[in-house]
């Protein structure tokens, strides 16, 4: 009986991933921010390594898409999340059991832990059979759980837990307090005094009155009076407590290894789906990209930078989406245009989309086909590093050289404003040389530059520009469009500002 993994088709390939470091390009692409936001509040699961490992096989990506699609069913998502909440409760109970000094106290918490664990598993198995997920991942889980709950150990453990808990709850006892003395004995069906008082004054009842009941603070520990009483109760009901001792000793390691692993791995999906939900609520779109390395035709419509979108939503600002489409022999997007116009964001978006796609996640946009890359390289301008004892241009060249050394025809390269610390003429010459290489590799590339000439380098290059409002070039639209412009794009950007595009009008008119 074995359960492979909800994340991996062949988990054995990834067993050493726990200590993985983020890829080099993470900060350049602001993916560190994205993943920090995605995994926030889930530190206990150590999810980041999962996000540091892009997949390089279309079937593995499809495996995750299937699970994600299952989780789009709200009921299933809610139920599967509930399971994880129960597992978390179980861990808290176990920690509490360890922390308490008194044996009978720890044992009570231990029982709670077993109970919530068994309940979590029973419910999940029920939910899966009712919701009938289609993914290979959940189907395998379902099979595993069905076998597990039918095992003798599982059923008898649950029954015994329930019995002991019921026995404990029924062990009612009396305490008589007089001065500094108190006595403990069994309860003998005495009447509830408060009921009697209420009955006597019933006739005055006039509707709702203040609640005078004190809410006593609660904490798990006991003082020595409580310990005296608990130990007396144990003596009053010796059978119950000896059963309790025996049962706890026999069931020390009740958590199934594979289920614990599942509980961690499923968090990968929760984390990403929760993050997605926050963005889709703000009107942004996600889609399942078609991920392939058969074709280098790539496109994405209404894409955006996840890190920026997250920040803008929190600030309450609106987000501008952009499209790209490379087809036939097109490989290199050269982005030019005024500063602060969204060029770098566009380049990041292109890379983020590919990276997320390789994680098997949905990507920003409404329709998307992306390339399954072998490696992703970025070259963003860095602070000058005094300790490196070399100039900035030299540093640029070394880094570019490294990239060109490692890149293959299946790599993606992002160049962001390189060769800025030299003359324009030098920059043009150097850039042309690099671009020749990249063209030769046939790699996909986004190149942000102020050198217009690069935009017309070869049939492989596509020129895109950040767009300004024609009447007032100081106003940025954050739109990146294919140029040379067809004359309509400027008009469109004005229309957009007044929310008069075809789409905006449709949205405004919809009720």
């Amino acid at each position, binding site marked *: 009986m074995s359960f492979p993994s909800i994340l991996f088709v062949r988990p054995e390939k990834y067993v050493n991933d726990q200590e993985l470091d983020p890829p080099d390009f993470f900060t350049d692409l602001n993916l560190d921010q994205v993943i920090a936001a995605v995994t926030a509040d889930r530190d206990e699961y150590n999810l980041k390594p999962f996000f540091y490992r892009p997949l390089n096989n279309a079937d593995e990506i499809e495996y995750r898409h299937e699970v994600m699609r299952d989780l789009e069913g709200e009921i299933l998502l809610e139920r599967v999340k509930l399971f994880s909440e129960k597992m978390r409760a179980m861990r808290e109970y176990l920690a509490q059991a360890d922390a308490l000094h008194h044996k009978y106290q720890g044992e*009570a918490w231990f029982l709670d832990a077993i109970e919530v664990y068994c309940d979590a598993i029973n419910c999940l198995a029920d939910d899966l059979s009712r919701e009938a997920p289609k993914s290979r991942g959940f189907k395998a889980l379902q099979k595993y759980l069905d076998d597990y709950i039918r095992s003798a150990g599982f059923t008898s453990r649950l029954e015994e837990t329930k019995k002991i808990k019921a026995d404990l709850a029924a062990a009612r006892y009396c305490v008589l307090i007089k001065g500094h003395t108190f006595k403990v004995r069994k309860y003998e069906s005495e009447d509830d005094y408060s009921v009697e008082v209420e009955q006597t004054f019933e006739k005055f009842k006039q509707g709702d*009155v203040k609640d005078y009941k*004190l809410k006593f603070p609660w904490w*798990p520990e006991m003082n020595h009076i409580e310990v005296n009483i608990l130990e007396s109760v144990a003596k009053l009901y010796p059978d119950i407590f000896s059963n309790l001792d025996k049962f706890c000793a026999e069931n020390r390691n009740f958590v199934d290894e594979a289920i614990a692993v599942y509980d961690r791995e499923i968090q990968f999906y929760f984390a990403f789906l929760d993050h997605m939900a926050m963005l889709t609520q703000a009107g942004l779109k996600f889609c399942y990209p078609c991920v392939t390395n058969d074709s280098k035709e790539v496109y994405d419509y209404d894409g955006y930078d996840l890190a920026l979108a997250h920040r803008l939503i929190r600030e309450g600002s609106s987000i501008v989406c952009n499209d790209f489409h490379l087809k036939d022999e097109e490989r290199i997007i050269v982005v030019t245009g005024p500063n602060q116009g969204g060029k770098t964001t566009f380049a990041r978006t292109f890379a983020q989309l590919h990276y997320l796609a390789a994680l098997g996640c949905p990507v920003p946009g409404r329709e998307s086909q992306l390339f399954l890359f072998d490696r992703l390289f970025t070259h963003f301008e860095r602070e000058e590093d005094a300790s490196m004892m070399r100039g900035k241009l030299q540093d640029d060249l070394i880094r570019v050289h490294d990239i060109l050394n490692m890149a293959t025809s299946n790599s993606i390269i992002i160049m962001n404003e390189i060769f800025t610390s030299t003359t324009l003429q030098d920059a043009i010459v150097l850039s042309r040389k690099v671009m020749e290489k990249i063209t030769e590799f046939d790699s996909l590339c986004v190149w942000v530059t102020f050198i217009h000439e690069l935009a017309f380098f070869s049939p492989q290059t596509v020129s895109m520009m950040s767009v300004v409002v024609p009447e007032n070039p100081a106003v940025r639209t954050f739109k990146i469009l294919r140029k040379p412009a067809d004359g309509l794009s400027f008009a469109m950007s004005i229309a957009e500002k007044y929310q008069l595009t075809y789409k905006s009008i449709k949205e405004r008119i919809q009720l």
Partner: protein
Amino acid sequence: MKAFLMHKDRDFDFERELPPNEQALAQDLALSTLFESMALGDRFMIEIAKKAVLSSLSNPDSIAYRQNILKDCLKNPSIIKEIYDLAEESIEKRQKQWWATRYPSSIMFSAREALKMFVGQLKRLRTVAVEHADKFDSEGFARFFSMLISELDDKYFDRIEEYLKEMKFPKGVLMSAQLGKGNKAENFVLHKARETKQSWADRVFRKKPPVYSFHLSARDEIGAKALSDLLDRGLNLVANALAQSTDHILSFFQMLRTELAFYVGCINLNEQLIEKKKAWCFPVPAAAGQRKSSFHGLYDVSLALTATQKVVGNDVNADQKNLVIITGANQGGKSTFLRSVGQAQLMMQAGMFVPAKSFSSEVCNGVFTHYRREEDANMKSGKLDEELARMSGIVANLTQNSMLLFNESFSATYEKEGSEIARQITMALVDMGIRVFFVTHLYDFAHDLYEKKMGNAIFLRAERKVDGTRTFRLMEGEPLQTSYGEDLYYNILTSLNRTPT
């Protein structure tokens, strides 16, 4: 135990929200003078008078229920005031008491003290009931007194006093609990430390169930704290039940005071009218929709309570009508008349007597007023705009059988426009079965309606003698094209007589 002196089957709802047009009503019908005269400066009584008068009863039976109680009150004013004072005193005593809320044991102490005090007051209340019950004829008081006599018998008081003793716990505090989360105790319940019911033989031969005893050493301060905490947990429910019981008794006295405050207010008002030799009578309410509205000598009660000069009463028979158009001379008593109609309607539907020699009217679903207002101070809207906005707000609250009093509405524009607006609104309301009283100078409007010869309309006109003096009396009559504003002009030149407006 409920006083039920305002309604046959429920408490007077002091918390109930007043109708949204409460302010307009008070202002347009000069109700504050009425309330003040009832309350004689008592703030609490003003509030009650306001609530009672403005939240109208809607059927003749419930009006009769109050009328009968009020008749008893007017017959026995000193007994009513005695019960009122007793209720007030009980509330004050309770409020002066120190009340602990921190620990159940101290809550219990406070509740015991309060209970002791209340027992004394309840005994006094019962004595009043026993002594005077036979002087009252109304259904409400008969029920109230017999309830006091039967519910609060000596046996009951004995039982409470026994509790007061027991709750000092001379035999110790006995509680039970069970094991809860983490095997900590929960669900504490207090029990009477009862006498053992075992027979002699049982006690000797039966095996005694085990009991484990502990005694704290004198130095164990933490233990003492823990034990008193445990004690509080045990007492929690009973302390709550006892404290809530005293609250219930308190609210009984509060309700008694609230309901009697209305009747004491009526007694006060009645005394003032008698002193001023003004007529008053109990009105005859008719069911909604019966189109009943006739009266003799109806006068403006607020004016009568403050004016030094003679106040004129009006006689009108508007049975089978639901539109009354009032036109005529300026300063002729039209507004005063309109006010008296509204006042009497509200007073009748509160179960009060009314300022008239006789008065009969169908009950209505809410009285509304639409008066010309001062120019809007914050310039937000033009005057007609403001009037229409207000009208629209009123319409949103109208139901069939509502009553609507217009005073010179829609005249903040050309006569023709104003008339058309007034006509459309009025006709719509009347056709919807709403009772409309309309004081107007819009000749076009009034004349047009007159010409229609509607069977359900009556036209009143403020009387003016040929020499221009006003009688402040309204007579049936066709609307005239002049309101004799000129008279006023001369009047002001010749004398500065104060006249009602």
